[in-house]
């Protein structure tokens, strides 16, 4: 039970300043990235008309997201498709990583979802400025009446907080529940089912929701 609050650190010193890295999060994120690089290499090694299982899995995954992005953005090109799909793929494997013993989810650290949430925020607002023009973008804040402006700004900032805290809270809460229940039942019978529910099911749903909400925020801005 003691391991809940502990964070293993790497500390880099630059003169008087120091940078603190969370060791666990870094290593787990690199594991996720290595998994996807390996998957991409294996799936595209020999592409054929009649695909092997790995290639058809990759085609299914990418094709589904291509359809989703096309449906909700109504653009002719695929400029937001790589970003949204990458967010989904990264968080999908990240959330499911806790199922494997000795590994833990990088999304259990608030820094991971918050950084990608902030990234989605900037992408959405940059594309809003680019598509609508600066004047129309600013005018969007003064809808419906001009004194609603502070509320609109707070609403935009709250989107970042809500999207990242949702993923963090789900994964962190799930892993704490797994830990506490495993401790109570001496790791008998229950933990596999809890891992399947919180790791596989909730993890997939939350990764999907994160990517979909990023997509929705972008589509709200560009139309």
């Amino acid at each position, binding site marked *: 039970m003691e391991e*809940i*609050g502990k964070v293993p650190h790497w500390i880099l010193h630059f003169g008087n300043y120091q940078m603190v890295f969370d060791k666990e999060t870094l290593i787990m994120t690199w594991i996720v990235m290595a998994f996807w690089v390996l998957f991409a290499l294996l799936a595209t090694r020999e592409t054929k008309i009649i695909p092997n299982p790995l290639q058809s899995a990759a085609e299914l995954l990418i094709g589904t997201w291509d359809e*989703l992005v096309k449906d909700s953005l109504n653009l002719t090109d695929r400029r937001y498709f790589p970003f949204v799909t990458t967010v989904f793929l990264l968080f999908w494997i990240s959330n499911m990583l806790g199922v494997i013993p000795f590994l833990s989810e990088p999304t259990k650290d608030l820094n991971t979802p918050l950084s990608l949430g902030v990234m989605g925020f900037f992408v959405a607002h940059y594309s809003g400025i680019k598509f609508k023009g600066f004047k129309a973008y600013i005018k969007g804040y003064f809808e419906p009446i001009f004194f609603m402006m502070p509320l609109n700004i707070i609403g935009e900032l709250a989107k970042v907080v*809500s999207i990242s*805290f*949702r993923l*963090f*809270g*789900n994964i*962190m*809460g799930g892993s*704490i529940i797994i830990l506490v229940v495993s401790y109570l039942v001496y790791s008998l019978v229950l933990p596999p089912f809890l891992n399947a529910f919180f790791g596989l099911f909730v993890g997939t*749903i*939350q990764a*999907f*929701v994160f990517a*979909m*909400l990023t997509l*929705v925020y972008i589509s709200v801005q560009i139309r």
Partner: protein
Amino acid sequence: MGISGEDLMRAAAFLGAGISMGLGAIGPGVGEGFVGGKACEAIGRNPEEAGLLTRTMLVAQAVSESTGIYSLVVALLLIFVV
């Protein structure tokens, strides 16, 4: 053995965590159930749109879930930080 101010603070933090989680779970429970029920009705009315409806339902449920997650974060902060 008397009760010091430190103990009182811990007790209040744990109580606050429990109250925050218990009250904060009401809203998302009602909201998600409502969204799920409405989505079931809509799928029953036209089953060929099931994929789109399920997708929309998941996003809507996630949005209505966020207040529950806020209360979870507050409860975690009260337990582990205070």
